């Protein structure tokens, strides 16, 4: 055992940080990119490069779109495994509920619905069986977007940061949850082991030895953004606590949950079940107008963020309209519910309770759908600070041990260094390679999105092989040249992405910044250029140790030869 608390905490910080640091690196980096996921979507799907739109007319635009909506083949396959007997023909399935969701940054609209099925579940507890359908709609024309066009920001980078795209048994969610928990422990232990938390708050000495300077950078990026790191790790756990990590209401307390659902339906007047009597739907646009009028009356005028209709075509059908939370931290709120057949107001959501407000604030601050561009950039800064903190943690681990490992002929430092290169620069290369592939692959290529995903994983795997192949100097207590190689590649890929965007769409920076301003694409291009510059600068800096190392090696060889002659 250890002699002091600080040493024990140091052990926890080092080893837990190392093991789950690789996952945390992914969470922080892709989390930072997710702040601008919609903007990355615009970059990746040039057809959607137009101004964000408010929720379109339901009666004129959305109703015909929902009539065309079909069950999604992916969910058909997933549901088929949960039920007894074959599923009915998707063309005959009836929509039971629909939703539409938009934010102040979305030119296109996400819609979806649940289709009822007559099958019985294999697991009796699995009592909410539906097949889901979803689509992305251009609200200006009512056309749906091709499902082959992968939204790289919101459908790839964003889920990567919370489920690693490991969806089997929700494995990715559990790994990320464990990493978030370890992050909290790492923050507490980090504060305990930091000897000069305040006096070195502003200290970074890049001119000192790499061990000292990387420790400075590790400390400073961890400490200055400590509230950010803490709240993001904590709220990540809060967001998934009730439905993934501790789903008590679906397991141990299921009967209580079902009873509560019924009682709440009685209390709120929003019917829990269908009546079985068919009914027509009144104008939803009129309900939207009424909702907006009521919000304005409360001195909080706003746009619709979320629209939901349950029990479609039934007497008990109701329409719920929620205000977009663009001007506050909460996502959506101030719901107003209407009887679908008459358009009369059933219920106006009362002010939130304290507990509900805290929950909304915590989830809202993490999911950040608000319209505050400065805060969005500050979040990117926080995410990058987290990434630097973890990356420098890897460097520290290797630098502290590589001489000792070299003496003992151990490969420990070499393995960690190769994995660090893969997770730091390799991951950035994979993301950039995906963007480059997006611009190079033909727009009408069948399964274009799947190709892009395959390219992403392939580049990442190649980055690992490259890092492992180039890491042999680490086993001799030297520097791994893979860091420099991959930095150079990052510089080139970033530049290539900007140039390819210009060539394939005509949207160069002069156009998107000055003549026909479109900040979503300009922002991504400018960030890519900045990445390129930083990567080339880093590669140039990393050249120095390699050159010095070669000089030392030559000198050593010369000495050896001289000694041999002697």
């Amino acid at each position, binding site marked *: 055992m250890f002699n002091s608390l600080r040493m024990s905490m140091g052990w926890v910080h080092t080893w837990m940080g190392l093991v789950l640091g690789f996952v945390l690196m992914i969470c922080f980096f892709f989390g930072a990119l997710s702040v601008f996921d919609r903007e990355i979507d615009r970059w990746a799907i040039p057809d959607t490069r137009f101004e964000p739109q408010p929720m379109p007319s339901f009666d004129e635009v959305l109703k015909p779109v929902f009539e065309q909506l079909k069950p999604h083949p992916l969910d058909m396959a997933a549901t088929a495994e949960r039920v007894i007997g074959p599923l009915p023909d998707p063309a005959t399935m009836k929509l039971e509920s629909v939703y539409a969701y938009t934010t102040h940054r979305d030119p296109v609209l996400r819609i979806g619905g649940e289709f009822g099925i007559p099958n019985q579940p294999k697991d009796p507890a699995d009592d909410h069986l539906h097949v889901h359908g979803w689509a992305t709609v251009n609200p200006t024309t009512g056309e749906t977007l091709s499902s082959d066009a992968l939204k790289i920001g919101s459908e790839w980078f964003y889920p990567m940061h919370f489920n690693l795209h490991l969806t089997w048994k929700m494995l990715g969610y559990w790994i990320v949850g464990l990493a978030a928990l370890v992050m909290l422990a790492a923050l507490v232990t980090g504060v305990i082991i930091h000897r000069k938390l305040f006096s070195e708050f*502003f200290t*970074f000495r*890049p001119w000192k030895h790499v061990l000292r300077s990387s420790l400075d950078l590790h400390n400073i990026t961890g400490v200055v953004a400590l509230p950010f790191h803490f709240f993001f790790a904590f709220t990540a756990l809060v967001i998934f606590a009730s439905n993934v990590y501790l789903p008590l209401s679906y397991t141990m307390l299921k009967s209580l949950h079902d009873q509560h659902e019924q009682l709440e339906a009685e209390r709120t007047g929003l019917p829990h079940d269908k009546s079985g009597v068919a009914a027509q739907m009144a104008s939803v646009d009129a309900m939207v107008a009424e909702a907006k009028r009521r919000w304005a009356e409360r001195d909080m005028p706003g746009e619709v963020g979320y629209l939901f209709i349950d029990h479609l075509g039934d007497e008990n059908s109701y329409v719920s309209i929620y205000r977009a939370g663009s001007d506050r*931290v909460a996502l959506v709120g101030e719901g107003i519910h209407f009887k679908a057949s008459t358009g009369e107001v059933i219920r106006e959501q009362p002010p939130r309770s304290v507990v509900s407000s805290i929950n909304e604030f915590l989830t809202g601050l993490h999911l950040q759908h608000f319209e505050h561009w400065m*805060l969005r950039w500050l979040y990117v800064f926080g995410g990058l600070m987290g990434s630097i903190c973890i990356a420098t943690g890897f460097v520290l681990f290797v630098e502290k041990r590589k001489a000792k490992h070299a003496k003992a002929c151990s490969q420990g430092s070499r393995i960690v260094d190769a994995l660090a290169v893969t997770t730091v620069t390799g991951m950035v290369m994979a993301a950039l390679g995906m963007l480059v592939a997006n611009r190079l692959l033909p727009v009408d290529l069948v399964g274009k999105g799947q190709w892009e995903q395959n390219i992403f994983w392939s580049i990442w795997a190649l980055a690992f092989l490259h890092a492992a192949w180039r890491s042999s100097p680490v086993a001799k207590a030297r520097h791994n040249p893979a860091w420099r190689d991959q930095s150079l590649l990052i510089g080139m890929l970033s530049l290539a992405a900007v140039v390819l965007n210009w060539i394939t769409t005509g949207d160069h920076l002069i156009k998107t910044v000055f003549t026909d301003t479109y900040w979503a694409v300009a922002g991504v291009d400018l960030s890519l250029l900045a990445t390129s510059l930083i990567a080339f600068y880093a590669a140039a800096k990393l050249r120095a140790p390699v050159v010095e190392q070669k000089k030392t090696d030559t000198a050593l060889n010369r000495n050896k030869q001289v000694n041999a002659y002697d």
Partner: protein
Amino acid sequence: MTEAMWLIAAMMTALLSMGWLALSYESHWQQVFPKSASKPELKRLKAAGWAGLLVSAVCSLVADHPSMAVLVWVMLLALASMTIAMILSRRPTLLRMICPPFFVANA
């Protein structure tokens, strides 16, 4: 526009305050000025730094809804601290600008 002005004010005061707080440490003071600082001077800098942070919080609160302002302010503090740390590591003498002689005699 007014909101943007208040946010810029919050950012500038956060930066200034973090600069003063950094200079209130003898080690950083010596990176910036050739002469040593007296204890009262360092104390004055620390007090000014904390007061500036409060002003920055007020500017954030004027600019935004309180729930948003608290996030903006906390993140501004992080950005300001990092900026000051980078200035100290690359061009420490730049911080002389934020310490006029009437504020600190040895500046």
